[in-house]
């Protein structure tokens, strides 16, 4: 079976700064895959490179076995791959209503039956029809992130790229959004690639993960191995320690 997403020896450089070097990952269809690392490790850049938002200098990206080069992506690509960004305050147009925001991808892709689809999409993310004509500033952070998820799902993609989808949210809202993501993944058989700096979140959501540092993959491991502490790499161990909270000296 072809992998849902396959990244081979990918390099990304901004001028002289190498954000990614020689990164390879394979994500199977229906899998939930995590990317972990400190800020600046290149985990978000990897997702952005997949959707054509970062300058690729070497290597290749293949979705469903089909190789994508450069930064151009076809419309068909975005029917398959959608992304949810970290900051629900920044990723929704401030002067568009939810209705308009959800209509946009349908219009771009020439999909009809917009009315029914928008209703269904809102329903699926647990927002009632009363949210349809609100503006982003009239909603809480959690509600906005639900709208961003609805916007990604409305095209019925197969792969969802999630860039820190809950790190801007309060703990209790985070739980709600994580539950929602698991629900839609189960219902639709989606493939997830999820970036997070929170090992708790990643092990909860993903079966396998890689740790990244300075633009390289440090270690690939299963969530189960991480849970039992069967971690060989020193940096991953450090992350694992850090996730347990602050440790007082002495």
């Amino acid at each position, binding site marked *: 079976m072809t992998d849902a997403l396959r990244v081979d020896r990918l390099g990304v450089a901004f001028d002289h700064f190498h954000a990614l070097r020689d990164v390879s990952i394979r994500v199977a269809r229906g899998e939930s895959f995590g990317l972990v690392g400190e*800020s600046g490790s290149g985990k978000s850049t990897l997702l952005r490179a997949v959707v054509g938002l970062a300058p690729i200098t070497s290597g290749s990206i293949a979705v469903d076995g089909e190789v994508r080069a450069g930064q151009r992506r076809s419309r068909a690509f975005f029917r398959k791959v959608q992304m949810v960004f970290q900051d629900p305050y920044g990723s929704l147009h401030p002067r568009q209503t939810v209705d308009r925001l959800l209509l946009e991808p349908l219009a771009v892709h020439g999909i009809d039956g917009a009315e029914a689809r928008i209703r269904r999409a809102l329903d699926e993310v647990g927002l009632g029809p009363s949210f349809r004509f609100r503006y982003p500033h009239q909603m809480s952070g959690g509600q906005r992130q639900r709208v961003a998820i609805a916007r990604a799902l409305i095209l019925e993609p197969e792969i969802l790229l999630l860039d820190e989808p809950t790190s801007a949210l309060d*703990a*209790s*809202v985070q739980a709600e959004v994580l539950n929602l993501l698991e629900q839609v993944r189960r219902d639709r058989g989606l493939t997830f690639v999820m970036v997070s700096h*929170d090992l708790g979140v990643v092990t909860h959501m993903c079966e396998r993960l890689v740790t990244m540092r300075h633009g390289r993959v440090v270690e690939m491991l299963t969530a189960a191995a991480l849970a039992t502490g069967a971690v060989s790499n020193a940096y991953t161990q450090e992350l694992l320690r850090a*996730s347990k909270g602050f440790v007082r000296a002495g």
Partner: protein
Amino acid sequence: MSPLLVVENLRVAYPARAGGIIEAVRGVGFTLRRERLGIVCESGSGQSQTGRAVMGLTAPQARVTADRLAFAGIDLARAPPRQRRALRGGRIAMILQDPKYSLDPVMTIGRQIVETLRTHQPVSRAAARRRALDMLAAVQIDDPERVFGLYPHEVSGGMGQRAMIAMMLVAGPELLIADEPTSALDVTVQLEVLNMRERGMGLIFISHDLRLVSSFCDRVLVMYAGRVVEEIASGDLTHARHPYTRGLLECLPRIGDDRHPLPVLDRRPEWAA
């Protein structure tokens, strides 16, 4: 030892657009010694307004009242603006949420740190520069000379946060209020930085991360809808009694436990009563 900060029945109210008022803080009280006090709550619970009221940074249209608001014996509620200005940045400092918005974008990082120091202490330019560089090194910036001359947009979020911490600590404050200082990631580095520079100051650490706060602070106040619903020693967190505190602890995903779906918080109207 006398307490560093005494807050009794603090209220912050904003006039609402439709008439009437919105009470953001509704009778918060605590005393702080030279210790680490955590305030845990979710957005909109009045935690930042509490910190700002202590700093004297509440927006002008708001009404701040308190039975007592005293810092090291100074009655803040009655202190003239000049005195509050002298305290602010000198003896009381506050680390704000987002370095992107709270550093001056058209001033180099070094100049901002020097400015803070020279506003509060009579030191020469050269001495101020030396102390700013020492401070940058102390917050674990590898190349202080280089960062000193950079503008805020030229550094990463984590670096900006550290520069901000350096700026707040350079005048040697006795009370430091940290408002969600870890939202710009790299939690551990910043905690180490705060930990190291503490030197017997009082710290109010505001965060929504209950586990982080409890591992870092001595005592934790849990706020909900503008009130303190529970005060608890951080070691006793597992014995938290209020359903809100327990709910906050429960809904965090933990490594190696298998709870699908995660329990979510069931907010009761009586908590806000």
